[in-house]
């Protein structure tokens, strides 16, 4: 779930370079860059804005959390080839995006088109700070697996083997801006699913298996 004024780019498709050439002469890109047809902007977006989560389809389900990639808006063109100083609200744009470290596989699999067009499986990129896991049922149905993998990786990266419930929920809040109540429910679900187990006393640990 996205905050009301969230920065978000909905990528309809990759843009064929032959199409970009119609309005912009320099179509060259590095391996981690590409040209994309971006849907009407719901909010204004600044050039060089960065995004780090990937959402799929009209329901904008989270499919990749923060940490695996980031993407920056490099160039923003309108349909006439005017280079824009920012992405204005309500504009559809042709944009050059730069991914770090690489273009995610899901983005690479988008169709290559020569026009803006409807794509029910369009991918959106957003800033994780604009994501709220505010609907527990959706969280439970769709996001627990991702949260588990992401949080386990985060804790292991910080060499934390055991953690309290408070630590876990606080980390979840800092990454996804969940409400405390939702953080509690996510942790409870992970424990019910056997993904987080009690280590000793109030300390918890991640289970070894990653079946998601």
């Amino acid at each position, binding site marked *: 779930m996205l905050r009301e004024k969230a920065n978000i780019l909905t990528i309809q498709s990759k843009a064929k370079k032959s199409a970009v050439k119609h309005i912009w002469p320099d179509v060259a890109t590095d391996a981690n860059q590409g040209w994309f047809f971006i849907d009407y902007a719901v909010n204004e977006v600044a050039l060089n804005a960065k995004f780090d989560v990937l959402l799929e389809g*009209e329901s904008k389900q989270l499919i990749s959390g923060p940490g695996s990639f980031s993407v920056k808006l490099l160039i923003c063109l309108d*349909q006439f080839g005017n280079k824009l100083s920012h992405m*204005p609200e309500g504009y559809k744009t042709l944009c050059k995006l730069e991914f770090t470290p690489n273009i995610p596989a899901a983005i690479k699999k988008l169709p290559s088109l020569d026009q803006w067009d409807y794509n029910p499986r369009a991918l959106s990129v957003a800033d994780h700070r604009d994501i709220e896991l505010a609907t527990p049922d959706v969280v439970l149905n769709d996001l627990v697996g991702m949260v588990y993998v992401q949080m386990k990786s985060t804790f292991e990266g910080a060499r934390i083997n055991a953690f309290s419930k408070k630590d876990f929920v606080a980390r979840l809040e800092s990454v996804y801006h969940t409400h405390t109540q939702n953080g509690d429910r996510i942790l409870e679900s992970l424990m019910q699913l056997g993904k987080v187990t009690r280590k000793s006393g109030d300390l918890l640990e991640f289970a070894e298996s990653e079946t998601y």
Partner: protein
Amino acid sequence: MPGNKLPDFVFRGTTINYPGNNNAVQLPYTCTSFHPVKALWFALECLHLQPDGAVVYVAKTRKLSDFNLIYNHFNRLENEIGFAMAPVDFYACCEGYIHVANFQRVLATNGIEAYNVVRKDNLTRICRETPDLNAKKIVTLVEQMLPLLR
């Protein structure tokens, strides 16, 4: 546009006297569509901003002949035609505007789907699903719109 011939009419869905954003004013340019229903979708998207001011402007293209067309290679989705003029100058050349509710009634009486909840995030889909209209049908619609123009 059909056969690369400029159609008789163009339409712009917006709010009354909306000057356009900075780019449209400074460059300048005005985006229009030769498909009146698609223009309606854009007006409906503005309805939450001005419930009484969301309208579709109607212009005869022969009255715009003093202004250059802006070539748009990507006009398929919106049937868009750009003119090198600021939106306020475009409005001055129009026959007038029709409020979205009145236009919806005109379309409905002609058996054309006119009622949609339009947002920026579904505008592409709705434009994509909007059937083409032939020139004769558009002229018929304009004739029925004229008495309702302001």
